């Protein structure tokens, strides 16, 4: 029972981070039908920029309050990633808007490799550790161990997702985004400048990714130039699991994938008599993804409306 609750909590934390990153994949896919493989790298850049700022500030004055230092890191990382995503869309994807679908997809993989290598050149190959400056408290819930950071991560992710939901459902920009996703041509007829809407979509996704990057590096205490790859792959899987293109689906898919992964990691040893260990958690997550896609190819909440307006 303690293991179950513990893994459920761990999964919830991981899952809410996956969900935040998955939103970026699903929003871009919803509008452009493009899988933006560079999105994982944007997340990595968020972590790297924030850690650099944190390192610089602590270098100047190690006595600065930890929470403030991390906040400063986030405040620099978010606009940096927004700018990066804006540039990626403009330079790499926009010229290919009318090209066959494979072209932007390959470009996305190219952008991802470029960003990884750029990060390697700037920050090196070694792991960068997240300094232990955040106040840490821990609680015991039903026999499981919960840290203040875990609670903070889940609450922040939920708040951001609620904010995004409000933006997409209730604001003028959100309505324009949904209109553009349904028909670019008709959206233009309504006076929507779709280039701006597409830019906005990338930029909003990048802001969420930057925060997710900082959270994940704070959670694991590490950042690395290659961290965006697996995180991006998991988040993309989460988006597919929930039904790519569907915003609620990305949130659900992220949480589910995190929980499934954590529970899988917790119990896989028992199930297989110790033959497979918890390092098989990645395999477990992808196995569930395949299983869902066999029975529901469009994902849990995905439904392609047959006639696109």
């Amino acid at each position, binding site marked *: 029972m303690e293991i179950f609750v513990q893994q459920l909590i761990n999964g919830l934390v991981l899952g809410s981070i996956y969900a935040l990153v998955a939103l970026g994949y699903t929003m871009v896919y919803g509008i452009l039908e493009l899988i933006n493989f560079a999105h994982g790298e944007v997340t990595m850049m968020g972590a790297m920029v924030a850690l650099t700022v944190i390192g610089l500030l602590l270098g100047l004055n190690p006595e600065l309050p930890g929470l403030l230092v991390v906040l400063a890191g986030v405040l620099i990382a978010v606009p940096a990633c927004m700018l990066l995503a804006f540039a990626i869309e403009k330079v790499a994807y926009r010229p290919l808007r009318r090209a066959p679908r494979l072209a932007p997809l390959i470009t996305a993989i190219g952008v991802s490799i470029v960003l990884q290598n750029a990060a390697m050149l700037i920050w090196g190959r070694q792991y960068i550790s997240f300094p232990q400056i955040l106040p840490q408290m821990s609680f015991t819930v039903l026999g499981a161990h919960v840290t203040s950071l875990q609670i903070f991560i889940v609450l922040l992710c939920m708040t951001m997702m609620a904010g995004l939901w409000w933006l997409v459902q209730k604001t*003028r920009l959100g*309505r*324009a985004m949904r209109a553009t996703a349904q028909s670019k041509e008709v959206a233009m007829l309504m006076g929507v*400048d779709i280039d701006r809407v597409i830019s906005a979509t990338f930029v909003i996704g990048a802001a969420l990714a930057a925060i997710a990057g900082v959270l994940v590096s704070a959670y694991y205490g590490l950042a690395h130039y290659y961290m965006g790859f697996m995180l991006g792959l998991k988040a993309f899987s989460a988006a597919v699991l929930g039904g790519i293109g569907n915003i609620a689906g990305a949130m659900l898919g992220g949480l589910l994938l995190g929980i499934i992964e954590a529970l899988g990691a917790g119990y896989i040893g028992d199930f297989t008599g110790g033959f497979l260990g918890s390092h098989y958690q990645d395999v477990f997550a992808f196995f569930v993804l395949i299983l869902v896609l066999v029975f529901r190819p469009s994902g849990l909440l995905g439904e392609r409306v047959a006639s696109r*307006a």
Partner: protein
Amino acid sequence: MSLLTIRQLKVAYGGIQAVHGVDLVVEEGELVCLIGANGAGKSSTLRALAGLTHASGDIRLAGRRLNGLPAHAIARLGVALVPEGRGIFARMTVAENLAMGAYTRRDAGVADDLTRVYDLFPRLAERRGQVAGTLSGGEQQMLAIGRALMSRPRLLLLDEPSMGLAPLMVGKIYETIQAIAGTGVTMLLVEQNAHLALQVSQRAYVMESGRIRLAGASAELMRDPAVQSAYLGA
């Protein structure tokens, strides 16, 4: 000055010429129709006007050149196209579709115009919270027209509003088009159903293989033997 002046409009799709130099004028407050058979280039003309298709020639709205402007900029100048096939946002509610029609507007008159559209189409008022994809074809056409009106257009372009609708619904839509024209909205109507279009319009252009073949007052064209045999089945 005429509200809309088109001179020598040419549209080509990858080497295939769809429109071969069309001249057309619409005066303020007029309802003008453009009739012709399938493939005559009527829709291409409208799409070029709205900025959805690249075209050469000269298109002017109240003297301002529209060629080369992106579609959203043309929409902001007051040209509203109700596209062929209606083009409603199927996954948005009726109310959200209408709000999209007023996307470019920030004036205080939007609420009044919404009331006016709901008065014009009471069916839409009943279904305002319903997802537009669940509406019938006729209701979707009403929504598309209502949405275009929400932009308070200087020029309303209608592309085949009768297409795919039951005869009863076609009658209703055309009554509404006349009612809208009665409020002073300038309209250019493209229609394959020549009979209907000639009845509601003041002037008409007949298009054939990408060219204007005939032009004149609708009432006269209706009596023209060539028009009768080719388009009215007389």
